């Protein structure tokens, strides 16, 4: 069981690297969905051995896996279809450099969690904290380094995934109501952003954020 969780954690790390290094949305979006499914499975797998799965966890899993694993990729694929943009040609930061930044972020994430390790937090697994920080950092890198609006949404979802892991790492089982509230916010955020992208693509006939610079001082 321990080994299984370890493998899940490392696979989450690797999906992050894949997201950083791949230009094709056709690769990135399924990777994101895969990451979402792994995240959804993480809590039950973590809790499986000591105490069994509670109703609370079950509800959360039943909502979060379809949401993160299926609905978000579906929404993103719809945007891809509508805007007919399949890959980002020239991001602000080129793909090899993004991967390199991702490596630095990995070191940073482990350093940060080692700083926090001495203090008393009831972490369920030693790898959770670094994975959470790393996913958050990768989300931020994605948002900052990409020009396409859809990639920023992708980065936002990655960021939220990281926050979800962080929530589990810090607070263990948070109250169901709070979890559902956060999930609802994330869902609405992705929904609103996708509508926004659709409108932008209709108005500008592109979704390149770099070219949105009418408003300046």
């Amino acid at each position, binding site marked *: 069981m321990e080994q299984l969780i370890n493998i899940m954690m490392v696979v989450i790390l690797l999906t992050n690297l894949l997201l950083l290094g791949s230009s094709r949305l056709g690769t990135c979006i399924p990777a994101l969905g895969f990451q979402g499914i792994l995240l959804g499975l993480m809590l039950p797998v973590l809790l499986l051995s000591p105490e069994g799965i509670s109703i609370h966890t079950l509800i959360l899993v039943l909502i979060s896996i379809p949401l993160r694993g299926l609905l978000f990729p579906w929404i993103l694929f719809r945007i891809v279809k509508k805007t007919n943009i399949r890959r980002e040609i020239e991001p602000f930061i080129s793909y090899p450099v993004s991967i390199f930044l991702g490596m630095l972020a990995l070191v940073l994430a482990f350093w940060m969690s080692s700083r*926090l390790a001495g*203090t*008393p*937090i*009831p972490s369920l697994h030693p790898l959770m904290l670094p994975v959470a920080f790393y996913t*958050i950092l990768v989300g*931020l890198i994605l*948002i900052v380094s990409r020009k396409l*609006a859809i990639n*920023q949404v992708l980065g*936002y979802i990655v*960021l*939220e995934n990281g*926050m979800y892991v*962080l*929530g589990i790492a*810090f*607070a*263990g*089982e*948070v*109250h169901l*109501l*709070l979890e559902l*509230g*956060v999930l*609802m*916010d994330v869902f*609405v*955020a992705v929904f*609103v*952003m996708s*509508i*926004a992208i659709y*409108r*932008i693509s209709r*108005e*500008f006939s592109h979704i390149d*954020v770099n070219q*949105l*610079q*009418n*408003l300046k*001082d």
Partner: protein
Amino acid sequence: MENGLILWALLIIPFLGGFCCFISKVRFIQWIASIVIFSMLVLSGIAVWIIITVGSIEAAHGWLFLDTLSVYHIALLQIVFALASLFGKSYFPVEIAHKAFDPELLPRYGMLWFSALGAMNLVFLSNNIGIMWVGVEATTLLTAFLICIHVTSQSLEAMWKYLIMCSVGVALAFIGTMLVGAAGSNLKAGHSEALLWTFLYQNASNLNPFFMKMAFLFLVVGYGTKVGFAPMHSWLPDAHSQSPAPVSALFSGFLLSTAFYCIMRYLPLVEMATGKQGWAMEILVFFGLFSIMIAASFMVFQRDIKRLLAYSSIEHMGIMALGLGLGDIGTFAALFHILNHSMGKPLCFFSAGKLVQIYGTNSIYKIRNAMKITPVWATGFFLSFLALIGMAPFGVFMSKFQILKAAVSKADYISLIVFLFGCSIVFISALRYMLLVLYGESESHIHPQKAYKRDIFLVAFPMLVLLVLGLYMPEFLENILQKAANIIRGY
């Protein structure tokens, strides 16, 4: 229990109103809005009265909670919201006549408008800091489409910046929230009360100081993005300048304060956990001064009238942060300043919005001779702007003066000098255009506009409040402010 009902009512009625707007016909919306706004005003009045007599109330097993600090904000919010909605009545008919707004979309925007109110109320009412975060994020998402009611490329750009920057910023605040939860993990709380603010407040001195410091950094940067602290402010001028005037009035008048309120809630927790050494307050002083300076320097060469006001909002948020950071009388002054700002700034945006509507341009160089064309709104713009930059008989002057006093009594002369310098730059750069806007010769042939009674009320009410507050502080208000300040000071 019956006291608890009012919390539920405050929370649910706006959402209910939003839902009714969405399903109703266009011509009924006006009535729905009037009913909701009126009942919200009455309810918040009752809530203030209850809080003055009882102290604090809670409902839903302590998940909803109201004390002096939050009831003060809630009451202000309802007033600002009512004013903004009322102004919408004199703003949108003209837009519809110009074919800039499709009345068929009214139900949809009405829903967003009232739901945004509901989300802000949720922020003030929730005792769980996680739910508070959910509320702040919800306000971002619900107000995003209000920015681009006029679908232009600029407004879409502003909306996208707002959406991405605030979502990411608020996401950082979530990390801070979780860190606060982790800081309290040695308190052995169950998971329903671990994130309750009252619980954390009672046990604040036992929270892990290292975690609280980390958390506060994330929270200030995260919620600070929404407040508009420099250097996270870049979305703010865009969003304020592109959204229609009632929306920008609500944004500036209270959306920013809503995020600021969250920081206020965390300040005593961090201060008590770190042994009241003023660590967190210094951070607020830094952000406050930095925002004042950035806002002042951008106001000097600003040509867009609404962007000018947006930068003024950044400046005022900086002043509030400065007051909170100086502590003591500064805390009181910061709270007082929120009241003054949320009276003055919406009026300023109303008048500016009207001027923009009449002249058809945002450029301050093209708005001339306003006093002749629309005397009511020109007066409103002039007076509210004078009040906001700190002219003497108005309330803003008093709160700024108290912050100065706080800085002097704390012997914090750097803050004093930066604050005075920033304010004087704002003062000069704002007055620069004022006379030209009011009296300058206009080349275009714009006919003088008719003034409604509603317009006169919208101008007179905030100005009267500001004038009264500048001359005389009612005792009950002073009590409320003092009690709220004590909550922040952690007594």
